[in-house]
């Protein structure tokens, strides 16, 4: 085990730089504490002594990189995750959406799609689905393909159903899927207004004139300066009066964009943009510090 903090950081920097230069994925500004642990797990998995050995492997073996990439990002999700968020969305956001002839929602970092379909179900129950255009994006092409299919293991149903009920769902979750063998398939009527697209919050640009951005439990994997870049990107993408929904332990408080927003729900982190501003500059993430 290398003995000093600085040496460890140097190795990690070089590893992330190698991935970026070789494959274009930029993990350099991810939150260090958990990234370090995830990479440590990979060292143990492949029985390597140090990160330098891993650098050699990812540079010379693309298959190895793909293996490791899967473990660099976290794809924890479930339908109606944090049910009370959806309840709060019904109360704090939906009434305003009702007054619009049409609106756009960007679900950034949608992972395998469970939370997208949850939002679609909620919009349906509120009679808002036909007015909505939903953009579902993720950095990881493979999870996006899963999201598109909308097929989930059947053993998740008890948890998802319980979440649905707690979220204030009006009917039964089984109204929205078909069970087949050991899977459930989400109803295709939920998919028709969703556009799935590859998008990297670290390097890519804005989606314009959104009325809602949902980005839950994604930013916790980024360091402070990258979080701030993403908040600027979101602010550029949101209309005046539009809504930003974060994970319940993510906060705008530590961002320079905080003064642009009003907090509608401090527990489930729903914000409304209440200030106009010139578009913020978004250099592709060159303020790459380990802070």
């Amino acid at each position, binding site marked *: *085990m290398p003995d000093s*903090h600085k040496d*460890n950081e140097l190795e990690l920097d070089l590893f992330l730089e190698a991935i970026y230069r070789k494959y274009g994925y930029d993990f350099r500004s991810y*939150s*260090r*504490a*958990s990234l*370090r*642990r*995830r990479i440590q797990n990979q060292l143990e998995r492949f029985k390597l002594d140090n990160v330098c050995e891993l650098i050699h492997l990812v540079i010379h073996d693309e298959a190895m990189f793909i293996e490791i990439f899967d473990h660099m990002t*976290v794809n*924890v999700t479930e339908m109606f995750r944090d049910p009370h968020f959806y309840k709060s969305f019904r109360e704090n956001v939906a009434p305003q959406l009702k007054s619009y002839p049409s609106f756009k929602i960007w679900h950034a970092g949608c992972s395998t799609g469970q939370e997208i379909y949850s939002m679609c179900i909620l919009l349906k129950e509120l009679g808002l689905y036909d007015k909505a255009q939903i953009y579902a994006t993720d950095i990881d092409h493979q999870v996006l393909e899963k999201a598109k299919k909308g097929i989930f293991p059947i053993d998740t149903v008890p948890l998802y159903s319980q979440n649905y009920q707690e979220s204030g769902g009006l009917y039964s979750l089984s109204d929205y899927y078909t069970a087949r063998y050991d899977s459930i398939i989400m109803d295709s009527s939920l998919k028709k207004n969703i556009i799935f697209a590859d998008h990297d919050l670290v390097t890519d640009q804005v989606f314009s004139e959104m009325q809602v951005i949902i980005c839950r*439990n994604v*930013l*916790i*994997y980024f*360091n*402070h300066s990258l*979080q701030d870049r993403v908040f600027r990107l979101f602010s550029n993408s949101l209309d005046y009066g539009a809504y930003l929904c974060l*994970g319940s*332990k*993510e*906060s705008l*408080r*530590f961002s320079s964009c905080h003064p642009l927003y009003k907090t509608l729900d401090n527990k489930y982190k729903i914000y409304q943009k209440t200030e106009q501003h010139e578009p913020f500059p978004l250099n592709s993430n060159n303020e790459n510090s*380990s*802070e």
Partner: protein
Amino acid sequence: MNAFVTQKTEGLKKHHELIVIGASWGGLEALSAILSPLPKDFPLPILVVQHRQRNQLDSGFFIEILNRHCQLNVLEPDDKEHIETGNIYLAPSNYHMLVEHKGALALSNDEPVHYSRPSIDLLFESAAESYQENVIGIILTGANQDGAEGLQAINVRGGYTLAQDPATAEVDTMPLAAIAAAQPDAILPLKDIASFLIKFCKN
């Protein structure tokens, strides 16, 4: 006199900046006993992982109980929360709590470690990584082995390590595992830990 109780003082002269505490089964009572006597001007921030079943207890309940007894301010942090003196930060249930760098926390949904999320090991290892020898790590009562590796990580970096005397723990598995793994600098009965910290952290 219990066979375990020991106390090395050479580590006490170092400059400490942070206390991390891990507790599991029986932890609420043990935490109250340690945290409630600490004065308002206690000079170090404190990070706590207390294992809880997901959704079993509203975390508001824990915070409320501890705040009722403590003079320091107990809170559940958001991601990237600043670490400040005068506060006790309790890991939210179902999130890992880590030290991102000196002065800031990070939360994560990464997989449970030894079936635990939050994991004591992750908090302790990340604290040791960022604060090096300036951390005090404390392992309390619990029915598993979480925290043993973390306490050892603090040891390796030269931080000060302390375990609750297993004879005074509601469940002794966790302090016993920590003692075996890390040979801590001090092993103290629950009732003595608070006064020890107050004396120890005075300067």
